[in-house]
C-alpha cells in the first residue's frame, strides 16, 4: 500500500500545479462568481435558475478537469520516462496504476471542493440562503462519484488508446452516459421496439456507465424529478459507481500489465 500512497501523493502534487487544470478551475470559479447575474435573464424563479447554472458549471468543469487530468497521466509518465525509475523500484504495475488513479481522484476532490466552497459562499452571501448552499453539497457528492467514475473510464482507456483519441472517446462516453443513457435504457425496455435496435440499446445501456443517475438534483435538467428515498438512491448510486470503477480499474490493470512501455 505504501507505494500506492506515495504515487497518489505525487500525482496530487503534480495535478494541482498543472496550468491547464488551473485555468479550467479559474474559469469555472469565475463563471460561478458571475452566475447570480444570469438569474435575472430568466423568467423562471431566480434561485432555481441559479441552482441549475451553478450545478451545471461545477459538473461541466469537473468533467473537463477529470478527462484532461487522466487521459494524459499514463502517457506522460512514459514519455518523460518517470515510469521507468518507478517501475525499476519494488513497485508493481497495478500499484502504479491505482496510485495514479487515487491521486487523480484526490486532486479532483480538491478542485471540486474549491468550487463547492465558492458556490456555498455564493448562496450564503449573495442569496442569503446558507441552507440552500449547503444542500448543494449532496449534489456535489454525487458529482464526485460521477467524476471518479469518469476518471476510471479515462484511465482504463489510457492503457491502450492514444491520449487524443481517449479524450474524445471518454468525452463521448460521458455525453452518451449522461444524455443518451435514459433513451437507450427505455428503448431497451420497450416491448414494441425492433429486436435489432433493442439489442443495440441493450448493449449500449449495459456497457456504458449510467452517468445520468448522478444529475438528478439539477432542477434545470430534471425539473420534475422527485426521489422517494434519497438516502437509498444515493447509496445505490454510490455502490453502482464503486462497482463500475472497480471493473474499469481491473480492466485497466490487466491491459497495463501487458502494455509495452
Amino acid at each position, binding site marked *: 500500500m505504501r507505494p500506492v500512497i506515495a504515487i497518489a501523493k505525487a500525482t496530487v502534487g503534480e495535478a494541482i500545479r498543472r496550468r491547464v487544470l488551473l485555468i479550467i478551475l479559474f474559469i469555472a470559479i469565475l463563471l460561478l462568481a458571475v452566475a447570480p447575474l444570469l438569474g435575472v435573464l430568466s423568467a423562471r424563479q431566480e434561485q432555481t435558475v441559479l441552482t441549475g447554472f451553478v450545478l451545471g458549471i461545477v459538473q461541466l468543469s469537473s468533467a473537463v478537469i477529470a478527462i484532461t487530468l487522466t487521459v494524459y497521466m499514463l502517457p506522460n509518465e512514459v514519455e518523460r*520516462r*518517470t515510469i521507468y*525509475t518507478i517501475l*525499476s523500484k519494488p513497485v*508493481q504495475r497495478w500499484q502504479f496504476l491505482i496510485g495514479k488513479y487515487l491521486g487523480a481522484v484526490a486532486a479532483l476532490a480538491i478542485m471540486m471542493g474549491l468550487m463547492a466552497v465558492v458556490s456555498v459562499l455564493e448562496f450564503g452571501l449573495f442569496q442569503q440562503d446558507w441552507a440552500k448552499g449547503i444542500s448543494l453539497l449532496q449534489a456535489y457528492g454525487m458529482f464526485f462519484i460521477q467524476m471518479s467514475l469518469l476518471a476510471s473510464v479515462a484511465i482504463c482507456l489510457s492503457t491502450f488508446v492514444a491520449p487524443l483519441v481517449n479524450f474524445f472517446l471518454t468525452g463521448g462516453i460521458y455525453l452518451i452516459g449522461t444524455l443518451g443513457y435514459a433513451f437507450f435504457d427505455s428503448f431497451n425496455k420497450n416491448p414494441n421496439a425492433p429486436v435489432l435496435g433493442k439489442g443495440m440499446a441493450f448493449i449500449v445501456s449495459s456497457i456504458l456507465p449510467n452517468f445520468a443517475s448522478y444529475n438528478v438534483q439539477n432542477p434545470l435538467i430534471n425539473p420534475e424529478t422527485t426521489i422517494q428515498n434519497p438516502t437509498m438512491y444515493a447509496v445505490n448510486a454510490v455502490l453502482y459507481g464503486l462497482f463500475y470503477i472497480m471493473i474499469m480499474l481491473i480492466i485497466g490493470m490487466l491491459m497495463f500489465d501487458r502494455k*509495452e*512501455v
Partner: protein
Amino acid sequence: MAAAIETKQLTKTYKSKSRNLTVVDKLDLHVEEGEIFGFLGPNGAGKTTTIKMLLSIIEATSGEGYILGKELGDFDVHKLISYVPERPYYYEYMTGLEILKFYGSLFGISDVAHMQNLLERVGLADARNTNKTINQYSKGMQQRIGLAQALLNDPKLLFLDEPTAGLDPIAHREIRDLILSFRKEGRTVFISSHELSEVELICDRVAIINHGVIVAQGKLTDLLAGGRVEILVEKLDRGVFSDMKIGDGNIHDTPAGVLFDVPEGSDVNAIIDGARAKGGQVVSVVPRKKRLEDLFVEAVRNK
C-alpha cells in the same frame, strides 16, 4: 566471480500486423559482480530495450536472463537494483530532498538523515535545506539527484543510461568519480553510453551491440590490444623505401614524409636503422594505442 547479469539468447520481438521487428536478437551478456560494464551501441541498436528487459519493465520474447542470480521478472530483485534513465525527469515541483523522500517511500525508507547524506555525497549538500525545486536545477544537478535516488536502497547493481550526456567537463569528472566510487564499494555498474572516451576510462569490460546483436564483448584490455606504431621518416626516396621489409606494416608516402605504420610489437629499431641507413631522417615514433572509438567503429561497420 559470480555473475551480476547473465543473459542467454535473450530476444525481444515487437509483433505488429504487418511485420515482426526483432530489436534484440539472441543476446548473450555476462556481467561480473563488482565490475563497471559498458554497454555500447549506436542509436537504435537495442540498448534501451535490453535495459528495460533487464529491469523487467518489458518481457523478453524468448531466451532467459538472471539478475544477481535471480530470474528476470523476480520482483525481489527490484530491492537490490537501481536505475538512472537518460535525461531523467522528476516531478518538477519537488525539492531534491522531496524527490528522495518520494523514491524512498517506494522502498519504505524514511530515514531523512540517510537522504541528506546521499545529497551530500552526490555534491548537492546545498540542496539539503533549500526550497529550490527540481525545475530550477541544472542538468548536472538533476543527474546527481538521479544518482542519489539510485543509491537510496544501497543497491548491488546500478543501471546508468548515458550518465554523463550533456554535462560540462567538471560535472563529467565528478560523476565519473562517483561511478568509480561505486566500484570501490563493491557495487556492479552497468552503463549504457555513447561517450566512448568516458567508458574507456572507467569500464572494466564492454559489450557493443548493433542491430540488436552483440558484435564485441570482453575485457577492455583484451579488446583494445593490438595497437600500432607510426614512424615518420623524412628524406627517403620512393625507390628506396618501397624495397624495405617491414612485416605486416604499411608504408604511406605522405606530404610530411614516409610513414611506416606497423603493428605493436614489431621490430621498430630495425625499421629505424634501415631508414637511417638509406639516408632517411626519423622525425617521430608514435605508438598508437587502439582506442575504444576504433573498436566501436570497426565492430559496428563490420556488422
